[in-house]
């Protein structure tokens, strides 16, 4: 029992540390946020979008900007540990290294979720559609949970290569495709006014992805960091 509470404390400490670093440096979240907004502007003109956007397009646009922006956060979250040998300090902690994975996933989820919370009113304003919907927030949380847990795993992998963070999108996007399809479809359904019961298969897919990727991190993260 003591071991487990140590483990949880480690998860919490990694999470708290990441938040603290972000609070003091403010180098990750603002970049993600501005980038997400830029993607919205880029797509608006690239796809000739109109203010009265269909639910489907709004959901797709939201997820594309979230997926792109969170790549920045994921890369930063692991490259941070490379500076001043911070990773060595983390690895010295006498708990299973998957605790680092859960802590980092939690902080990445928090940052990406905050970006999403800013995007929702912005989208409502730009595209004349109320997106401040608690059920949409639930879908976003589920989708981002799966996306960031897979992303944290792959970011730890790509940071060890010679090309470092350049590799992450190439590894992450094809593997995250089912999560993005399910998240876009569920968001589209919510925005079109469908009850959650009708979107059950998409939500189950998101929940299953969460479980699978968290389990993969639990089992494999120690191996990824081993040196």
């Amino acid at each position: 029992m003591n071991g487990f509470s140590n483990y949880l404390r480690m998860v919490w400490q990694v999470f708290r540390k990441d938040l603290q670093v972000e609070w003091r440096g403010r180098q990750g979240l603002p970049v993600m946020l501005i980038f997400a907004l830029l993607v919205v502007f880029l797509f608006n003109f690239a796809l000739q979008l109109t203010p009265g956007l269909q639910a489907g397009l709004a959901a797709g646009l939201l997820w594309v900007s979230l997926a792109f922006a969170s790549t920045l956060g994921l890369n930063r979250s692991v490259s941070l540990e490379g500076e001043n040998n911070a990773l060595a300090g983390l690895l010295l902690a006498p708990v299973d290294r998957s605790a680092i994975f859960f802590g980092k996933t939690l902080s990445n989820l928090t940052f990406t979720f905050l970006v999403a919370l800013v995007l929702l009113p912005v989208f409502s304003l730009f595209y004349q559609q109320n997106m401040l919907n608690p059920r949409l927030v639930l879908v976003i949380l589920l989708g981002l949970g799966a996306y960031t847990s897979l992303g944290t795993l792959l970011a730890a992998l790509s940071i060890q290569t010679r090309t470092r963070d350049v590799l992450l999108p190439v590894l992450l996007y094809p593997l995250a495709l089912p999560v993005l399809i399910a998240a876009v479809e569920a968001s589209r359904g919510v925005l079109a006014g469908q009850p959650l019961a009708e979107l059950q298969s998409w939500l189950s897919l998101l929940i299953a992805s969460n479980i699978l990727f968290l389990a993969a991190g639990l089992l494999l993260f120690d191996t990824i960091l081993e040196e």
Partner: protein
Amino acid sequence: MPKKQPLLTALNILAAAGVLGALILILFFTPEEAQMGAVQKVFYFHVSSAWAGMLSFVIAAGAGALYLAKRELRWDWLSLASIEVGIMFGLAAILSGMIWAQPIWNTWWVWEPRLTTTAIMELIYLAYFILRGALNTPEAQARLGAVYAIVSVITVPLTFFSIRLYRTIHPVVFVSGGSTAFTMSPRMWTAFIVSLAAFTVLLAALIWNRTRLAALQSANAQEEN
């Protein structure tokens, strides 16, 4: 000189004979499908390639897990060989699928679940080589390659289900309204089973040869050092 492996030679011959035999069966013994005509005969090698590709990615993940458990490089060679061979089979499945789709659906590409999943799978496993190429030591290549092969195999069924579900909601409207659905006669079944078996043997032979090549390359590299 590496020593000869009579079992491998036998497997090579069996694979060649099997594919040739399947080809003869398909060309001369199966009937032409009533609606689609001769082009339907692509089906035999198309499905067999897709099967072989899928199987090789599962083997790659299994070999990756064995590498992580035992830390013997030969499991990594098997994993690498399976992915390389799997990519070629996947490509064969996509190309033959396109050849089939053109006359039936009047287009080279449809966003059909199986075809799309195979294409995504190709992208996933191409990234595997970029990942390996960007790592410095054989140990890191083996370790991180194994992790990636395992994570990838988890997402492939998720991709398939999500695209299939997507397509039931947004069905593809085919230009000419054709369908690849057909009933198989006993002769068609025979040719199909023979093709599947022949491609499975071919897969085994290719993976074995490629694994052996990796082993020889590794021995060579050690001699030079």
